């Protein structure tokens, strides 16, 4: 299955007298275009339209839906923080690049949230059901952590279809879930710092995400596999962009070296969380589809990175098993450490030696327990959509 850029091609523009009044030069350029260079997802179709989203045999749809939300929320919220950089970057080339990365991640989020909705629909939700009022949406992520297959277990689970007058899955998830229902890691939601902090966060995020997506191309869910294959190409560039800037800043001036180091130090407490598997990730990545012990262990307060790397889960299931739907994130730690070591060496920077930031009662972003920054982020992102809950945009 291949997902690519789609633009519906030439289409008439109602009410336009443009062609009649414009110069010949204009007529030559106004004709419809099907250029693939337009940003993915700016067309008029649903992100997954035409894609067979039926569930693979034996897969727990609620788990798959929750997992896609995790990956989708990571991309959505990271994209939001990149969007906030617009018009504030040091050079125009960076304006173009950072917007591009934000667009890629937004595109990934749209596909993943749509996949989540379709997977949820596959577990007992009436097709074409009206969208649910935000107040009626399902429980928090915690509620379903140990109870696979329960209808409505994922956030907004009872939701809604895609018929006329209904809201697309992606928008329902983005705009009408509350904070506790978002499953992104805390790293992506943090308030923006300076350019060095942006680069440090992007380096960590894209290195981690690329390792995950690479393995997910072998997911037993063909839709997720196709989304991952598209994402690999994009995130490869993101990682390269971040790595190049890390080297430039680390090995630039003394001052830039200090700031780049400070940027790394600022994001590093959130690194440990990236490699702790949530129960959903463990179940979906398990060999033979059997459950491994649900152990959503959050980094413990005071443990160091080195101690975490020795966590017994570290050699958990990868994607060797064709029935595995997800990647156990603890299995990509080694790749992450290797890549970071190379980049930091070339940058003359030190790997921060700081403890992982604890969650609350062992619960972190994947469990819907976020930082204080998250509420403000959602207030901003959701404000217009929630002010016009019946609006069509």
């Amino acid at each position, binding site marked *: 299955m291949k997902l690519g850029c789609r633009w519906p091609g030439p289409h008439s523009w109602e*009410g336009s007298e443009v062609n009649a009044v414009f110069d010949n030069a204009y007529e030559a350029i106004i004709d419809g275009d099907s250029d693939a260079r*337009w940003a993915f997802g700016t067309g008029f179709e649903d992100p997954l339209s035409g894609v067979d989203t039926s569930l693979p045999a034996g897969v727990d749809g609620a788990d798959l839906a929750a997992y896609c939300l995790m990956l989708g929320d990571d991309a959505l919220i990271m994209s*939001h923080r990149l969007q906030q950089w617009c018009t504030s970057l040091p050079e125009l080339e960076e304006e173009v690049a950072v917007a591009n990365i934000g667009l890629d991640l937004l595109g990934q989020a749209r596909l993943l949230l749509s996949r989540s909705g379709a997977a949820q629909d596959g577990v007992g939700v009436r097709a074409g059901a009206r969208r649910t009022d935000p107040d009626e949406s399902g429980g928090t992520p915690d509620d379903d952590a140990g109870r696979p297959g329960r209808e409505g277990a994922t956030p907004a689970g009872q939701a809604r279809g895609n018929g006329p007058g209904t809201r697309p899955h992606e928008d329902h998830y983005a705009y009408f879930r509350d904070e506790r229902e978002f499953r992104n890691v805390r790293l992506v939601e943090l308030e923006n710092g300076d350019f060095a902090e942006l680069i440090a966060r992007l380096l960590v995020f894209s290195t981690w995400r690329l390792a995950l997506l690479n393995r997910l191309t072998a997911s037993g869910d063909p839709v997720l596999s196709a989304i991952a294959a598209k994402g690999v190409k994009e995130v490869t560039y993101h990682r390269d962009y971040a790595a190049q800037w890390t080297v430039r*800043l680390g090995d630039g001036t003394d001052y830039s070296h200090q700031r780049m180091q400070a940027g790394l130090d600022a994001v590093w407490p959130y690194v440990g969380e990236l490699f702790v598997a949530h129960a959903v990730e463990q179940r979906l990545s398990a060999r033979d589809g059997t459950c491994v012990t649900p152990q959503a262990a959050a980094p413990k307060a005071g443990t160091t990175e080195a101690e975490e790397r020795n966590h017994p889960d570290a050699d958990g299931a990868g994607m060797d098993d064709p029935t595995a739907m997800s990647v156990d994130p603890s299995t990509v730690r080694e790749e992450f450490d290797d890549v970071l070591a190379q980049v930091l060496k070339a940058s003359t920077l030190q790997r921060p030696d700081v403890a992982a930031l604890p969650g609350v009662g062992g619960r972190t972003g994947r469990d819907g327990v976020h930082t204080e920054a998250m509420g403000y982020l959602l207030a901003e992102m959701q404000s217009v959509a929630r002010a016009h809950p019946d609006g069509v945009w």
Partner: protein
Amino acid sequence: MTTETDAATPDLEAHFQRTVDRDQRIEPRDWMPDGYRKTLIRQVAQHAHSEIIGMQPEANWITRAPSLRRKAILLAKVQDEAGHGLYLYSATETLGADRTDLTEKLIESRQKYSSIFNYPTLTFADVGVIGWLVDGAAICNQVPLCRSSYGPYARGMVRICKEESFHQRQGYELLMTMMQRGTEAQRRMVQDATERWWWPSLMMFGPPDTGDAASTSGHTQQSMAWKVKRHTNDELRQRFVDMTVPQADVLGVTLPDPELAWNSRRGHYDFGEIDWDEFKQVVSGGGPCNAERLAQRRRAHEDGAWVREAAAAHAAKHASHDHQPMDAS
């Protein structure tokens, strides 16, 4: 290259004007009068500045866009504008200008940008109306520039106009969606935004060609002889009005001008008098957002200074590493 002596200048100038008169292109290495070069640098730099400042009012709504599809469209549009700015600054560099220097001139208010961006974007409908009216006006202004006598600018404008027309269609499509499938509150938003942006959009074509408010700079006449401007301000403004009125009807919004009426004798729409005092106030820096827009551009530039210095220092280190064997001798 040919030696340019004073004695040879009349021949060169005659050759230059013949090239222009035949609608052929002037290229960077061709001889050109100093005035032509300066006029073009000013024109293209102002256009580049407008693209960059123009990112701000729209970027204001990216994080709040009420659907992910609209968010992607808006983010892509703002990114396109950064791209337009980049290649317009590159076009000025073919004329001997320097991007850093032009950026300094912008943030020190020594060069202008389109005054339209000194108005605030107050609702999400503004995003659609900017696409429809502001990009529409920009297209009217810019399409003739695809035939500018200066080659690099003309070629750059072909691509820019193509993208602008795409943005305009997207803006109009947003408004159609809000008007036809949206709520009453959304329709009010569209009408309100149309009323706020209509007159400033008409001002985008600049002062009138005749009358009390006409510009006395004399730029238009010389620029038309050099074919770096192909139509007068009033011709372009009329074209925009004629194009837009039927679109407003289809959309179902009322343009805020009681004098707007079809004139069958002229074959054009008549429209009311523009508030040229407001235009002058905004152009001279006294609009609602002039200070804010420049402050944001200045802040980004100054906050980024250490990053640019680091990149230069890193590049210099590498250049010296790469050349070490030769430098060592």
